[in-house]
């Protein structure tokens, strides 16, 4: 349990550090040439972004479903007294 907290703390610190570095560089170094879409075009492809997100969500949901089924199989095997499942 303690180790889990340490890992979570490391992750949070690294995440904040990486974002802070990226933000600092964006503000102080910038990007040249910086080309950004005109405001009227910016929203043009939001449906594409939504479609990409939907595709990824569907695939992720399928992966999670497979994992749930796998865990169910493992639990049933354990209850039936079958040989243990190693995680290595």
């Amino acid at each position: 349990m303690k180790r889990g907290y340490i890992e979570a703390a490391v992750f949070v610190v690294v995440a904040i550090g990486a974002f802070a570095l990226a933000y600092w560089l964006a503000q102080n170094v910038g990007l040249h040439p910086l080309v950004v879409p005109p405001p009227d075009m910016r929203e043009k492809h939001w449906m594409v972004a939504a479609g990409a997100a939907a595709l990824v969500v569907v695939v992720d949901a399928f992966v999670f479903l497979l994992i749930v089924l796998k865990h169910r199989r493992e639990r049933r095997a354990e209850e039936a007294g079958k040989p243990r499942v190693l995680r290595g």
Partner: protein
Amino acid sequence: MVRTSRWTIPGVFQVQRLPIRVVLITAGVSYLLQIGAIVQGYPLYGIVAVTLVPWLLVFAFEYIWKYEHYGFFAFLLAFVLLQLGHLSEHTVQIIQLYATGGNLAKSHGVFGQLDFETVHVVWDTSVWVGLAICLYKFSHNRWLYVSFIFASLHEVEHLYLYYIYNTDRTFYLMGGLTGVMGYQGVIGSPLYRPYLHFFYNFMVVTPMLIAFARQTEHAYDQFLAKALPDLTEKELVETTNRLERVVAQAGDVIVRQDDPSDRFYILTKGEVELIVSSKEGWERTIETLQPGRFFGELGILTGRNPATVRAKTHTELLVLDSRSFTELMKSDAKVRADVDADMRRMHDLKYATSGPTPTDGH
């Protein structure tokens, strides 16, 4: 001649398949090629490429060996290394941006020729799918879920960019390349694209490394598990880290009958034959062992090898010293039962041999 190499824990992080001299020679060749490329005035990507080329064979041999012994964990190891390389590329790019005052034209990482959308989407989709496979395989590892979620967010970004790149090049060149979360993108953030993607990769790789460290604690040699199937996972992992690798060529005697014995052997590749001989001079092969079988336990427990073991082909074995083996036997009744059963079988085979048969050599 039987060749032995010893490694300390954890074995999975070490070069286990190839002798250390091969690694040193590879390092030397790589260094010479690097110097040559610098002297010849190669661009940065050329210097890095020729430096890495000699290592490819080393990595390939090691990877195959590790896959044979550690199973899918070897895939995770290779995957983590590749992703670290990818993160390095992004890190080099932001260093270049810093050094050039944010000049994107001069900041494409080491392999700048590959800095276009098709490569990005293929790589990141591979990472996303690879993580999904790892997650399914190691589904009790929570940090893989974190890494997978960030890889999914990153994937949305690249699918969007790839679509725009192929269907609306004008918009792409007018700033569409900023993507979904980039500065003034569809959703937007304060981060310009290179800095955003550096952050994305950091968020994928960091939990992946933590997940890998956790998974290392479950990594054990599959041949050990096959030979002693009743070992607990903890025993498998601890014992794996005490194993030595031994290589023998066809005809090599691995242990000799009646010699003192202090090692337990697990066959991982090739075939060995167990031969008993008598004072009268006859000898007889009582069994041929295949990978996954073991020998040497009777010798440890009685002090003398009951038979000679000779390699029939090129053979690889894992070896456990007698102290570790004895500790294992003491600590686990099921393992004792496994070994007892094999010892009884060996005893029966040996004493069923009352003399030479017409086909045996004298």
